[in-house]
């Protein structure tokens, strides 16, 4: 492999629960292989903490292949760390060098309270989806799939929006703590497809209302979310959602 094992200094946010006061804790990690993932480096550190009788660092993770959206570390001021287009679990240590000091924090947003250490509560996203992020079709009502023809380009655009993993990096990186990229990805997916037309207006109004109620900030189009999104969800979705919202609001007033 390209480089040797390295030694790093980690400054990690520790917080016992959502109400406790947190602080940074410094740890030295030695002999880190460049082939390790960032989370495997944390596994090694935690193993050591356990042996020393200390409380291991809590963090969220599950699939470790970049698709479940559960991992959520804010690394050196960037959600999911320095490499574009990857989640924390797919970030590998070869992206760091010997002697680096790495600062690791949880997602920070009023709408994502800390559970413990680096784990946060993102249930707000589930409630936003429950407010309209669906097509109201009960099981068993559907006609043959090929009766709905969809031009390939539109299907591809809808897929690209639907690729959002709901990790919340967009919220974490936004100085306003806005969830617009997440919400607009779902609104766009369904607005682009014929199946989504019937509920198009109620959907955008319902989801935006819930987003506001959850305490997410407003969007000032800084574009940070698009830069940090591990799945490359485009800012165009926000523009589309704004159009959808204006059109739906206008119609509602009529």
């Amino acid at each position, binding site marked *: 492999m390209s480089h040797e094992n390295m030694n790093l200094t980690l400054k990690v946010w520790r917080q016992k629960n959502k109400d406790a006061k947190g602080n940074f804790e410094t740890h030295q990690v030695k002999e880190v292989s460049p082939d390790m*993932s960032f989370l495997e480096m944390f596994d090694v550190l935690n193993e050591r903490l356990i042996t020393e009788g200390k409380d291991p660092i809590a963090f969220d993770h599950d699939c470790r292949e970049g698709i479940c959206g559960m991992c959520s570390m804010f690394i050196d001021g960037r959600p999911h760390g320095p490499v574009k287009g990857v989640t924390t679990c797919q970030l590998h240590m070869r992206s760091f060098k010997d002697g680096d000091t790495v600062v690791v924090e949880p997602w920070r947003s009023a709408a994502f309270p800390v559970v413990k250490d680096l784990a946060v509560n993102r249930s707000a996203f589930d409630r936003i989806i429950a407010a309209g992020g669906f097509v109201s079709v009960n*099981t068993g009502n559907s006609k043959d799939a*090929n009766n709905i023809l969809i031009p390939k380009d539109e299907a591809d655009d809808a897929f690209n929006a639907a690729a959002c993993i709901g990790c919340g990096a967009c919220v974490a990186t936004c100085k306003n703590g806005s969830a617009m990229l997440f919400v607009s990805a779902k609104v766009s997916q369904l607005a682009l497809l014929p199946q989504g037309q019937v509920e198009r207006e109620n959907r955008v109004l319902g989801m935006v209302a819930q987003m506001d109620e959850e305490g997410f900030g407003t969007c000032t189009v800084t574009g940070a979310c698009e830069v940090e999104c591990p799945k490359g969800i485009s800012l165009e979705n926000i523009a589309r959602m704004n159009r959808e919202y204006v059109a739906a609001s206008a119609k509602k007033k009529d």
Partner: protein
Amino acid sequence: MASSPKLNSRIPEGPMEHKWTKYRSTVHLINPANKRSLEVIVVGSGLAGASAAASLAEMGYKVKVFCFQDSPRRAHSIAAQGGINAAKNYQNDGDSVYRLFYDTVKGGDYRSREANVHRLSEVSGNIIDQCVAQGVPFAREYGGTLSNRSFGGVLVQRTFYAAGQTGQQLLLGAYSALQRQVGMGAAKLYTRHEMLDVVVIDGKARGIIARDLITGKLERHFGHAVILASGGYGNVFYLSTNAMGCNVTAAWKAHKKGAFFANPCYTQIHPTCIPVSGDHQSKLTLMSESLRNDGRIWVPKKQGDTRKANEIPEEERDYYLERRYPAFGNLVPRDVASRAAKERCDAGYGVGASKMAVYLDFSANMMRYGQIEANKQSLHNPTKEQIRELGMAVVKEKYGNLFDMYKQITNENPYEVPMRIYPAVHYTMGGLWVDYNLMTTVPGLYALGEANFSDHGANRLGASALMQGLADGYFVIPYTISDYLSGEIRTKAIATDNEAFVKTEAEVQERINKLMNVKGTKSVDHFHKALGKIMWNKCGMARNAQGLKEAIEEIKQLRLEFWKNVRVTGEQNEFNPELEKAGRVADFLELGELMCIDALHRNESCGGHFREEYQTTDGEAQRDDDNFAYVAAWEMKEISNWELNKEELKFESIKLAQRNYAS
């Protein structure tokens, strides 16, 4: 052979193709007012759980859904890559319900229940219709119709897909349907909750004990019926393609409460995964089977060849799958492909630093696609480089996310050099024994999706897990559950201060106390890794009687040591991932023993269960239909003491035959 009287599979009478239709038309119904007072608990929010919960809530039942993740959308179905099968015959290539049925039974090496598989095949088309109606963005052709590709073990194109993220898109569809019900108040979500026991009252499942993972508090929940859709147990091997949190706990607790566990030794080792890179490895990553549509698998013809892949000329490469299985080539079923890779590596032909890998090479098909694109664009005399560029774009569109993932993990560019791959644990065909209704041996307790044993026999075909999960949840359980619940309309909700709830909660509490109080010196992961090594070496891709006997003793020893020397840090009344892991590993330590016992008792090879003593002269799995054409359903008497119950497998529609993928 006769089936055990304890196992009533409740297969409807009549010809195979009419069983399900007749069942649906005659099953007891429940009027809408009564449905509103019937409560159903669903544990797990993957494809099976989310689709069941959404459908049952739509029908009017009161539904509670539990998942250990922070959102139902994180369930590991999300990571399924390649696709979902359905007998639509959109490609006009001769597909039919019968053919999907036949391929699945044959792929499973004739160890699955025909009636269940036929039903699966019948409803497969409805799944695609349902998902498209929900707005799942499947891949499409330029004419706007749905696109298909091929998967292993079949000769038709029946796999629907959304790039390499099919599981994600299907799960988000089911999750959206579920969230719609949550928004309407028909379903209630309990995220970051882990089921730690089933409550059984008068022989029927009546609820669960769950732990709120944030506060650590134990909760009692009543249900007229309990559905487990809690996935498979591949993480017993420590290293697998499963998510870190995947576990057997819900199913295992049910097993200890009387649900028989069927065919635990049937595990699927997936042939195309990224090889292990070091001791720090925490999980393995799959490279979708769909890649075998366009990737050719090979090793050097010379043992211990140290040249780089691109320096080995064509004539010095051994495309061993194409050589051994000309009819199916690179698209043989997973068990066959995995064993063939192991065979080459064990014989000294492996590649890469560890020599435990084979190549998956896209260059030939990249050039083929490039040529087609060049023709489409009317490029005359394109250079080789131009063709390669055009071909690369096609491959990128089909598998881009997988190639990116490979590069991120290995630091090698698979567009330039072949991928290195090796088999890894991926799926478990075994699971809780269920009847035709998907009910376990505990009345009112159901198992869906990977958690049950029912449809894949001894080997699952690619793109069939998504199909089964959604079939069970959308199209089977909504009908079959009313067979049971129609008899429960007079049962009032049972208060959770009932003594059975109190007692079960006390038992759960005692086990947690026990785990916290060992205060030993070794981490939970230490024991999990040790168990994984035993399982992989002795109950993995190849097994033999000697090794299995050793494994059983080693696991017992390890379990003893675990309970004497495990260290669980932190407190029980807080968010404590170490405690969660400890409970799961404790259950794996019991399951591992049963898997080895099952593997040892099955004196034949079939599908993913390969006993070295039972193979043909060409090294293929040799079944023993006279003695082993049955489902092994294990009843737990106490730890280390199980009783075997057999369900005879009758093959009425398909003739038992030796699998043949060569001609």
